[in-house]
Structures are given as C-alpha cells and as structure tokens.
C-alpha cells in the first residue's frame, strides 16, 4: 500500500468529516464511526509493524511531496524503530479510548470529532520528518485537547484546560524560535534528515551573546519538550489536567501525549544536537531523579486516586529521563559502555511504551470506579475486594505493573534503565531506586485502603466491572504481562534504530564535546 503513513495520519480526519454529516442526535452512529476509523487505523499500524524491517535503523516508508517551495517546506513522513512503537501505542490507545468514552453523552458529535482530530495531531508528530510539519502537528493537538478537557472535564475544567493550553503553547513557541534558528543557520531547510546531518557542524563554535548556539537551541527545544513530558518544575499543569479531564482523555494524555516530549528530545535534540547531549546529560539525570522522587512523594500524599495516578506519571517519566541520560556512557570507547548506553536508551524507550500501557490501564480503572461511586477519594472506599473481585484483580495487575514488580513490563524497562545509568550516574541511580520503594508504598497503601479492611456499607451494591470496560483493560494488561516475561519483540524492534542514534550521538558529540 502506498502512502501508508499518510493514511494512518489522515484517516481520523476522514472519520471527522464523516461525523460532521451525521445528525447530532444519532450518537450511537457517531461512536460507531469513531470506533471503526480507529479500528482501521489500528489494523494499519499492525500491518505497518508486520512489514517494517527491524534490522535497519533508517527511516522507512518515506513519503515526500512539495508543499511550500518558496520556504523550502516539504511534506516528509517516515517511520523508524523509535516512532513505530509510539505510532502503535497511539493507535491502540486511540482505539481503546473510543470505547472508554462510550458513555459520553454530552455533545457526542463534538467530542468524537475533537477526539479524532487529536489522534491525527499525535500521529503526525510521530511521523513527520519536516520540522514545519512537525510543528503544525504539534500545535494542532492543543486546541482539541483544550476543548476536551474544558468541555467534558470535571469541576475545575476551565482552569485546567487553560493552564494546559498556556503551558504547552509557551513551550512550543520557544521551540518555534529554535526551529527557525536551525533553519537559518543550517542552510535554509526544515528537512529533519538534512538537519541531523548538518546542524552539528553548522552550529559548531557559533556564539550568541557569548553562549554557545548549540546550548541555546538545545535548551529552547528542551523546555518545549520538557513541558510536555513533564519535567520538574514544568509539571504543575499535569495533575490538574489529568484530574479534570474525562477518563478517555486522561488515558490519551498519560498514555501518549507525555511520550511526545521524550520522543521529541530523542528525535530532535539527540540526533540534531548530539554535542548538547553531553553537556546536558548530567542535568537530565538530575531532573530525572527529581521527577522520580518528587512524583513519588506527591503521589504518596494524595487522597484522590486519579491525582495519585497522575503523579505516578511524573515519577515514571523520571526514569525515562535517567535512561536517556545514560547515552553518554557510550562515549567511552570500550564495549561495556556501549552496552550500558544501549540498555539505558533502550530502557527509556521501552519505559515510554510501558508507561503508555500501564498508565492507560490505571486511568481506565480509576474511571471505572468513578463512574460507579462518583468520587475518587481513596479513603472513601474500603473492602471493595469483596464487592468487585474482578475489578480488584485488574487493579492489582495495574498497580503491580505500575510499581515495577518483576513479571510486568515496567520492571524490565526500569531495570534496563538502572543497569544502563549505573556506570555513569552511580549516586543518582542509588537514590532513585528509593523511588521504586516509594512507588511500592503509594500503590500498595492505596490498594490496601481501597480494597481491604471493613467494607463500606455505602458501596454494597456497586456493580462489577462490565464487559465494555473489560474490553478496554484486557488488551493493555495482556501486553504488559507478555512484554514483562518476553520483551524481546519490542527490544528487537527498536534496537537497530537506537544503535544508529547512539552511534550518531557518540560520533558527533564525542568529537565536539570538548570544543564547546
């Protein structure tokens, strides 16, 4: 199939147009269209996975078309081992998200149109290889997200929505400056593939107000992405947005949108400005550590289950940063260090994927109990295990996966990250293992308070998790378990690409690091 990537990106827009023609009172039909479109998209990404050649680390299924020749803007798409898992994750979560939002009954038409638009935006960011296109997709996500939180969210939704919007926009406009600076200093091009080749050399030795140009651009891009991750101290929008957003949107937000930040850092900062990686890696590891500990401590203090899960995202994304920082290990020239770099970066990417599935599962399960009890106060439950045994089992799976119990995928990726980062950041790794402990503490404590102890009389007749909800949770749980015992398929998929990435960081950065 030609233009496979374009189909994956634009299919939701087709669905959106189709929905526009459906009368607003036929809400079942609208949901079915959304489900069908995301279903086809998921099948397409599975097909893409099947025909993707994991043995090479370069971009595949490239598409290239003239767009605005006078400004050298081109429509370029491509997929590699870094973006493919993310594309799959988005398609999966997008598909599941439709079913999670099945009981939305306010302005169904608007909801699903925006939902599909969001899907297109995210897919576009993962697949775009032209910086201008990348930026357009990056910004296209904002408005649907604003509406989805602001219109269908909880009591504080307006504030949460505008806070999310302003934070993210502030980050992305800084990114715009960086993109334009790269454009004009690296030969008037937005082509990311070209920039990956030229940026490092073109910027080498350039000074802006006495600062190295590489550092300035690195930081501008990093702030843009860090807000999305979110990295401490830019994380304050996240708990609020998560708590106020409707369940399906929290699922997408945690499952996919947070990955955009890490993806951006790996795709752009790492490949275009490898010299900066060496300069920033230490800070990245420290920020990762802060995220881990801060997120865990905040989670421990929460009374609202959804907020707890939201802070656990901050914690989990911290590990990703730590793993990414380990790439500089490869600068030493012996083989062991290369292996730890591979473990670190591979672990980071794997952690992104795992956090996608695990946090999605967690948010869906929070949504399940909220739909029934209409509150999420951890203290307000008790003894639910006897009321809802199946639900309890799934929450147990999700919590155990979240705290990184061996046998679940989260354990594998966190272990890889620690192994990778240990040789270079010994102290940081040792402190951040404390995070794992805190992790276990807040999850188990919450579990105990909600499911054990005396049963709360109020909730004697809570209905058990239903089939639709099971349908949304089971695939995620299965993936978590399979990848927990047999992570090979995933690691093989990303290995070649990450090796190329590590090599480029090392070969560029190793040389230029000294001269910066």
């Amino acid at each position, binding site marked *: 199939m030609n233009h496979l990537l374009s189909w994956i990106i634009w299919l939701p827009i087709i669905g959106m147009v189709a929905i526009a023609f459906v009368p607003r009172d036929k809400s079942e039909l609208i949901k079915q269209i959304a489900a069908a479109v995301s279903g086809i998209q998921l099948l397409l990404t599975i097909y893409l996975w099947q025909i993707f050649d994991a043995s090479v680390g370069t971009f595949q299924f490239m598409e290239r078309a003239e767009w605005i020749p006078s400004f050298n803007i081109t429509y370029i798409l491509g997929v590699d081992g870094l973006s493919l898992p993310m594309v799959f994750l988005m398609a999966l979560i997008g598909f599941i998200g439709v079913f999670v939002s099945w009981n939305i009954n306010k302005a169904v038409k608007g909801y699903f149109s925006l939902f599909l638009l969001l899907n297109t935006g995210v897919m576009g960011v993962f697949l775009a290889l032209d910086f201008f296109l990348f930026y357009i997709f990056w910004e296209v996500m904002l408005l649907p997200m604003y509406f989805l939180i*602001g219109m269908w969210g909880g009591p504080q939704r307006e504030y949460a929505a*505008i806070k999310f*919007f302003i934070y993210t926009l502030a980050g992305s406009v800084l990114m715009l400056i960086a993109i334009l600076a790269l454009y004009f200093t690296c030969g008037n091009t937005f082509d990311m593939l070209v920039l990956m080749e030229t940026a490092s050399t073109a910027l080498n030795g350039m000074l802006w107000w006495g600062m190295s140009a590489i550092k300035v651009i690195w930081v501008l891009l990093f702030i843009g992405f860090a807000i999305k991750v979110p990295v401490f101290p830019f994380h304050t929008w996240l708990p609020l947005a998560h708590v106020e957003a409707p369940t399906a949107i929290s699922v997408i937000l945690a499952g996919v949108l947070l990955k955009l930040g890490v993806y951006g850092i790996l795709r752009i900062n790492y490949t275009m400005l490898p010299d900066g990686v060496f300069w920033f890696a230490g800070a990245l590891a420290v920020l990762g550590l802060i995220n881990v500990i801060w997120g865990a401590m905040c989670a421990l203090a929460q009374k609202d289950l959804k907020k707890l899960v939201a802070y656990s995202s901050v914690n989990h994304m911290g590990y990703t940063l730590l793993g990414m920082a380990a790439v500089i290990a490869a600068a030493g020239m012996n083989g062991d260090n290369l292996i730890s770099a591979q473990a670190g970066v591979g672990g980071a990417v794997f952690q992104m994927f795992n956090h996608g599935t695990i946090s999605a599962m967690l948010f869906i399960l929070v949504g399940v109990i909220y739909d029934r009890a209409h509150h999420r106060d951890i203290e307000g439950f008790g003894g639910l295990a006897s009321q809802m045994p199946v639900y309890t089992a799934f929450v147990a799976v999700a919590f155990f996966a979240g705290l990184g119990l061996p046998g679940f995928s989260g354990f594998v990726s966190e272990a890889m990250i620690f192994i990778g980062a240990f040789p270079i950041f010994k102290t940081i790794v040792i402190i951040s293992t404390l995070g794992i402990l805190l992790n276990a503490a807040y999850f188990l404590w919450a579990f105990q308070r909600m499911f054990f102890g005396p049963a709360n009389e109020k909730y004697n007749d809570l209905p058990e998790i239903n089939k639709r909800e099971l349908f949304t949770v089971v695939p995620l749980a299965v993936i978590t378990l399979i990848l927990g015992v047999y992570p090979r398929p995933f690691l093989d998929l990303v290995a070649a690409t990450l090796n190329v990435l590590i090599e480029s960081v090392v070969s560029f950065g190793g040389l230029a690091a000294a001269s910066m």
Partner: protein
Amino acid sequence: MSNLNSLTHFWPELILTVTVLVAIIADLLYRKEDSFKVAWWVLGGLALTLFAVRMSGGALSELFMGTIAMDPFANFFKVLVLISTTFVILMSFDSADLKGYRVGEYFSIMAIMAFGLFLMASAIDVIMVYLAIEIVSIMSFFLAGYLKKKQDSNEASLKYVIYGAFSSGIMLYGLSLLFGLTGTTKFFEMREAIAQLGPEANLALILSAVFILVGFGYKISAVPFHFWTPDVYEGSPTTITAYLSVAPKAAGFAMLIRFFNQVFGDGYPLGAETWTALNNVPWPQLVAVLAAATMTVGNLVAIQQSSVKRMLAYSSIAHAGYMMMALPLMSQSGVYGIMMYLLMYLFMNLGAFYVVIYVQGKTGGESFDDYNGLGWRMPFVAGVMTLFMVALTGLPPTAGFIGKFYIFAAVIEAGSQYYWLAFVGVINSVVSLYYYIRVVKHMYLTGDRSESIALPTSMLTTAILIALAIPTFVFGWYFSDVAEWINNSLVIFQGM
C-alpha cells in the same frame, strides 16, 4: 511624468473619484430608508477599481511630476485596501449601530477614504504624504463620529480629531525640518541631499525622523502613540472599528516602509543599510523597542477588558507590534513578512469584528458575557469565531500562524542581535492566547447548553462569514500562491 500624461496611468484613482461622485449623487436621489442602496454603487466602483489595479500590473514609474509612485508594492496595498473596504461595506448591512441613520454619505466617505489610502500607499513626496494622511484622517473622524445620537461616538470622533491634529502637527514639523535641511519635498532628491549633509545636521535629522515617526506611529497605533485607539475603536460604529483596525494600518505601514527606505536609505531597494542616514543613533534598536512595547502594552491591557470589542481594539495594537518587529530590519524578508501578516490579519480581524457586529445585533451587547453559550445557540457563528480567535492567537493551521511565522522568520534571519525581539514576540503570542481563548471559553464552556439552534438567517451574513473564514483557514496550510504574489509585489519604485 507630466500631469496630463500621468492621468492615463491613474485609472484606479480616477475610477474611485467617479465612484465617490456617483455615490454622492445617488445618495441625493434615494429616500432615507433606501439610502443603503448607495452601497451597491460604491461596491461596483470598487470592483472596477480592483480591475484597474490588477491591469496596471508590474508597471514601475512615477506620476504627477514625481509625487506618486506606481509600483507593484503600492498595488499590493491598494488590493488590501479594496478587499477590506468591500468587506466593511458588506458588513455594514448587518450593523445594528447604523439602523436609523441615513447612510448614503457613510458609503461615499468610505470611498473617499479608500482614495486617501491609495495615495498613502503610493506617495513619494512629503506634500503628498501629508495630503494623503489628512484625507484619510478627516474621513476617519467623520466615520468615527457617524453615530451622532450616540455620545460615545461623538466622543470618539472628538478624541480622534484632537489626537490626529496633534500628531499630524508634529509630523508636519518633522517634515518641515527635513525640507529645511534638503530644500526639496521629493523622496529621492531628499535622499541625495541627506547624503551630502555634514555631521552638524545630525541633530536636526534625527529630530525630524523622530517627529515623522510620531505621525506614522499614530496611524499604525504604535505605543506610545496609541492612546486614541481604544476609545475611538470603542465609540465608533463597529464596522468602522473593523475598518480602522485594518485598512489605515496597512496603508500606514506601506507609507512608513517607503518613506524610511527611500529617504533615509542608501538607494538600495531593501537591506541592512536602510537606516544609513540615521546611523548616529541606534535607530533599529529604538524601533525594535517600540515594537516590543507596542505588543506588550496591547496584550497586557487587552487581558483586562470586559468588552470583546475593546479587547479586539487593544489586541489590534498588539498586532501592530508584531508587524513592527520586522521594521527595524527593513530587510527584504522583513517587509515580506509585514505584507504577509497584513494580508492574513485582514481576513481574521475583519472576521472577528464581523462576529462582534452580528452578535451585537442578536444579543444587544458586546461584553464577554454576551457570548455565553453561543456555541450551543449559534454553532455556525461560534465555530467561525473560534477559528478567528485561534488565528489571531497565531496557532497553526490558520492564517494567523503563517503571518507570525514569516515575521518571526524575518527577525531570526536578521541574526542573533534580534533574538530577544523574537522572544518577546512569542511570549506575547502566548499571553494573547489567554484573552482570545476567553471568547471561546465563554462561547462553549460557560453557559448552558441550548437545544434551539439559530443559524444566520440572511444569506449575506453566511456568505461574508464564509468568505472571511475560508482564507483564514486555507492560508494556514496552503500559501504558495500568496507567497508568490507577495514576492512579485515586493518591487518598490526607486526613482528614475
């Protein structure tokens, strides 16, 4: 070119003049309730003028003994003026403000104003500069005060007169200093004379440049010459507010660029040496600071407004600031960026004001609270308003982003000494998100869901909204042809 020969190249303006006369005579023949029909005569005249402008193509020459330039640059601005005048006239049909007034004059004054704006875009003689500015200003005073039964409108007009007279007085003083230094009124002769001046003339030269900048700054409502803007914009009929925020601003930029490029430049079309004659003062930095101040003040004050119309008035100051970011560069891409921005801004800003006019007609108010629940009651109008707000914020994929993109690109291209300006610019767009999205918030997030849906009843309303919304959206991702057009229009007459 001699006066008589010039007339054969002066078709667009001649047609406009005839249009004005026809409109005045037609107004005499219609009864009061029919006076709206004058608009159709004016629209016909504008269409013919547009045709004539397009016909004159890429001709490059001076007319009327070196007082008026004929070049693609002027033509570009003439087209902008014609498009905005046409839209504003069409928008006037729906205006609740104008109900109960005899409006024949209103339309003929608008045609005279278009004529003045044409002259502003093409003047290359300081006398003509002053004449053009005064034609436009006096017509603006009329239009701002058109609602004679409304106190606000009278106040607006009076404020406008006082500010206008004051700033054009200062400008005239600057121009006379310049005349005293150079002994001529023509741009190109001035440039040559300035090049001959010794260092003792520096002070006078800088003073004259500053005074002249005051006049232009007033026209494009740059800080600190912006104080008239909010009150005039609020008191005027909303149609006129829309017009004032677009057309005179465009012509003001055209005139400013042409004047500084040709009088203080070094004879090259556009480029780094543009401010040659003023290199004793950090002139580009001064203009850059004015730009930063303009957008910041506009944005910060816009946040506090409770009326959408007034918010748009302040935000139009901020937009002038964004465009001014490209002024200190005076580079090819900077002027290109300003032209691109003006074109994009025309559609989105007129669109936003038209929605204000429409909502004012339906709900009788223009405060944010009058927009509560609009998304449910008038989904179409609210939908396009959302588009305009998003575009004014500068988010892709809308025209507003492309305008900003070109401006920022020009600023960044100019080198790292202007990065701070780009930084101020982007932070300001984030700030502007807050008040633009507030309109969206009131339309969709606040207010109860209503089951009764009101679509615009008149075809004309729908057509105008669509005609403004389509470019606002389409230019956000397809602007190749526009880019090409502006590129071809970037030819400024540089003397014979």
